[in-house]
């Protein structure tokens, strides 16, 4: 479980996060949604320690990251898996080396054991015969899957995904969404996904947090998102032409 308490973050004069407080549940895919510039990625980067909030606290299983010493923070980072928007695979390494990287850095396993684990997670994300290929030689969707494999290879307790299906076709995007949800349940981890894709909300939004201009304006489940009267939610949901048309058809049909 991850708890965020009154988090503020500014860049220069501009305040990006204006006191966010919420909780992300274990064993669920938690989605942070909102329009571009609403502070989703900044909140995610505050949670993983890439940005330092000026005010507020972030708790990992009831322990505030701010009160952890360097060693505790290092150990925590070993328990975090991250899927970046562009995959962030290391160009100079082949797929096998990319996925093996966290194991080489943080474990003392034999090479054969590491290789077995790498093949296991690559199979889990439905990738075969790509071990010796370099990231530039595989498609965007495959890169995302390799990135998921790298994120889960060291059995993390927390998985963060920054716009995991951006730049992917709808079918592949759905596959990636489903894969993230399956892995969340299988490993019983706390997963946080930043997205502005309503399809993802529909598919995997077991808990949804809506940000607007740096403030949390609504939270609930993907079932509740279509039932709420919250104006910010309806504005966000129906900013998609597809959802607008579906609503219009439903209204016509009574």
């Amino acid at each position, binding site marked *: 479980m991850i708890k965020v308490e009154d988090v503020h973050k500014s860049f220069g004069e501009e305040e990006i996060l204006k006191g966010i407080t919420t909780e992300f549940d274990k064993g669920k895919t938690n989605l942070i949604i909102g329009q571009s510039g609403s502070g989703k990625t900044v909140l995610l980067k505050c949670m*993983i*320690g*890439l940005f330092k909030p000026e005010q507020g606290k972030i708790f990992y299983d009831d322990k505030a990251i701010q009160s952890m010493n360097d060693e505790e*923070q*290092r*150990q*925590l*980072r*070993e328990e*975090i898996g*991250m899927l*970046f*928007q*562009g995959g*962030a*695979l*290391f*160009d*100079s390494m082949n797929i096998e080396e990319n996925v093996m*990287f*966290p194991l*080489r*850095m*943080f474990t003392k396993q034999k090479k054969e054991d590491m290789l077995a684990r790498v093949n296991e997670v690559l199979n889990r994300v439905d990738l075969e015969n790509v071990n010796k290929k370099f990231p530039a030689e595989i498609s965007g969707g495959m890169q995302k899957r390799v990135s998921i494999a790298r994120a889960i290879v060291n059995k993390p307790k927390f998985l*963060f995904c920054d716009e995991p299906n951006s730049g992917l076709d709808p079918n592949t995007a759905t596959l990636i969404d489903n894969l993230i949800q399956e892995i969340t349940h299988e490993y019983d981890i706390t997963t946080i996904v930043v997205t502005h894709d309503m399809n993802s909300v529909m598919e995997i939004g077991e808990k949804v947090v809506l940000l607007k201009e740096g403030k949390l304006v609504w939270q609930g489940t993907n079932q509740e998102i279509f039932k709420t009267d919250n104006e910010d939610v309806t504005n966000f949901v129906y900013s998609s032409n597809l959802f607008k048309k579906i609503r219009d058809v439903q209204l016509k049909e009574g």
Partner: protein
Amino acid sequence: MKYLQDIGSYFLMLKKVFSSFTKTSVLKHLIFKEINDLMISSLGIVAFISFFVGGVVAIQTALNMNNPLIPKSLIGFATRQSVILEFAPTFISIIMAGKVGSFITSSIGSMRVTEQIDALEVMGINSLNYLVFPKIVALMFYPFLIVISMFLGILGGWVAGVYGGFSSSTAFISGLQDSFIPYQLFYAFFKTFVFAFILATVPSWQGFYMKGGALEVGRASTTSFVWTSVLIISANYIITQLLLSS
């Protein structure tokens, strides 16, 4: 004010490079890779330039010796002094600022743009130690490259002098051995180490702290070459003043 901030950020980077070390087995692998990327891959260009510039130095010296009282051995002497004192350590370092420096800046800059550095940080790895320390260690082998440059520069001078008909081999070699001061080798290698450190760290700093996209990576590479060259030339002046003029 910005320059002061940049200088401060450079020294803070150095402090971080030498803290929270990456696992030894991983570091060893990275160091070998950097030796290959930065040193071995530069051998060809360094050998080519050294040989021909050494030859040009010998020809220029010979063509400017109008007085018949000046011994032909001066060609060998002038070639040795030019190559050992300035050409190999300084001129080659400026070329390396273009070749190795821009490679370092663009590779680290691309990692920044594509969030690969963020990925390292999220994993709890000290990205500066992981990326920059192996480059510093690899460039500590830079004096070996300079030794090769010195040898080939002098060889180029001998070939041009002897086969160009400007000097006999005996006179050239006699000039090479004339008034040799071993301290000058210490001076040449001392500054080579300083230049190696500049070559590893200034382009890394430029790449690591760049912001933006692909265009900025290109800009950072150019800026990196300019600043690395300026620092090498400035350090050369200061070291020469301190070590040779007293």
